[in-house]
């Protein structure tokens, strides 16, 4: 095989010439101009060997992309990194007074009261920790839907396609509103698992903002979710008689609220 060094003046190869290896790479990496790509396309139609080389190189590129794709951060790590990105608040006198351990010096609490306080604190801490973990997990799920390569398992703007798709996949049912708020579109849905429990993830856009709505059974894992804001994302948690509904987005909270209200009303 005689690779031919490409020259800008003659992008079209003859049938008895073959692609230079770096030209082949540039072709599969989308680095060539349209004229150069067309020249190579024409050559590939006539040269079986180069067509085979391009096919093998493309397959290897796809396999590399897949294998190297993600070492995903843990939910906790992603939450910490996301928190680091929150817009910086201007420095000034803190409104919250720091807790001074010495302040307790003036109180001689009986040992029993201390133990009781510790127990209560631990319970509250565990509850908060669980809520924080869930918040991080839902935020992580939402961020995953924002990545360019992510496509939902069911892609449809039709609620009559999206809802039936979940039949037999989740142990509960839910409705999707017939009429959505202005400039709001249903894009599709995913079946996901939150702490091992199945949940429906409905994907909407409001203007250009992506919205993830998680639907689980009311008594499910999301029961401890509070409405909150995390890293610039509004997390709105509500419930119906049977369902727990949590929405995550960076859209205007009022518009997120309208969509959540529409979903709740549809149940």
């Amino acid at each position, binding site marked *: 095989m005689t690779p031919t060094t490409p020259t800008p003046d003659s992008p079209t190869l003859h049938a008895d010439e073959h692609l230079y290896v770096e030209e082949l790479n540039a072709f599969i990496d989308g680095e060539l101009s349209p004229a150069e790509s067309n020249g190579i396309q024409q050559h590939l139609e006539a040269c079986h*060997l180069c067509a085979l080389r391009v096919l093998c190189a493309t397959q290897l590129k796809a396999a590399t992309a897949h294998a190297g794709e993600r070492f995903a951060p843990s939910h906790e790590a*992603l939450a910490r990194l996301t928190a680091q990105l929150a817009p910086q608040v201007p420095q000034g006198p803190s409104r919250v007074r720091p807790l001074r351990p010495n302040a307790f010096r003036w109180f001689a609490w009986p040992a029993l009261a201390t133990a009781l306080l510790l127990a209560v604190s631990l319970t509250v801490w565990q509850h908060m920790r669980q809520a924080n973990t869930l918040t991080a997990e839902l935020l992580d799920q939402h961020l995953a839907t924002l990545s360019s390569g992510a496509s939902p398992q069911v892609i449809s703007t039709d609620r009559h396609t999206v809802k039936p798709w979940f039949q037999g996949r989740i142990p509960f049912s839910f409705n999707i509103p017939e009429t959505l708020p202005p400039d709001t579109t249903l894009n599709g849905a995913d079946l996901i698992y939150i702490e091992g429990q199945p949940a429906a993830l409905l994907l909407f856009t409001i203007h250009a903002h992506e919205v993830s709505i998680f639907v689980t059974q009311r008594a499910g894992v999301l029961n401890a979710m509070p409405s909150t804001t995390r890293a610039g994302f509004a997390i709105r948690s509500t419930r119906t008689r049977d369902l727990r509904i949590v929405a995550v987005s960076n859209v205007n909270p009022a518009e997120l609220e309208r969509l959540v209200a529409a979903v709740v009303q549809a149940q």
Partner: protein
Amino acid sequence: MPSSHPSANFEQLALPLLPSLYSHAFWLSRNHAEAEDLVQETLSKALRAFDSFQTGTNFKAWIFRILRNAFLTSRTGIAATRTVYLEDNPDLLDIADASPTPEDHLLRLDDEAAVQRALEQLNAPLREVLLLCDVEELKYKDIALILEVPIGTVMSRISRARRGLHQLLQLQLRETL
């Protein structure tokens, strides 16, 4: 960057890149704790230097360059740069392409674990350029900016990386036959 809320703009640009930054940091450092530290350091440095980022240029390339520099100044990065590496001189290296052989059709490119093993065995600088090209889908000019090398060097490294990966997969295949 002209804006009344530069940190909000920064957040908007950086947030979608967190998984990519972390993944790349892990490939560089091979350690989860260190990967998180690297990304934290990157975000911190990038935010401080955000004024120097030029709107219209590739933010991903800009922040990946900061990540790479953070890695190179880390303990693991300093140790890694001690490794002797062949110069990017195509004349000294066998980068000749070969015609596909019948054996190539047996390569298990759909076996993610096999490809991942081959990626792990690949020389670190070659793996890095391949990840930036194939996984992060960056253009050659952006990869050149991140690695601080000429585009020609990027092209020759990509050629060698793919050839090396292919050879490693062939080696794995022969071991299983």
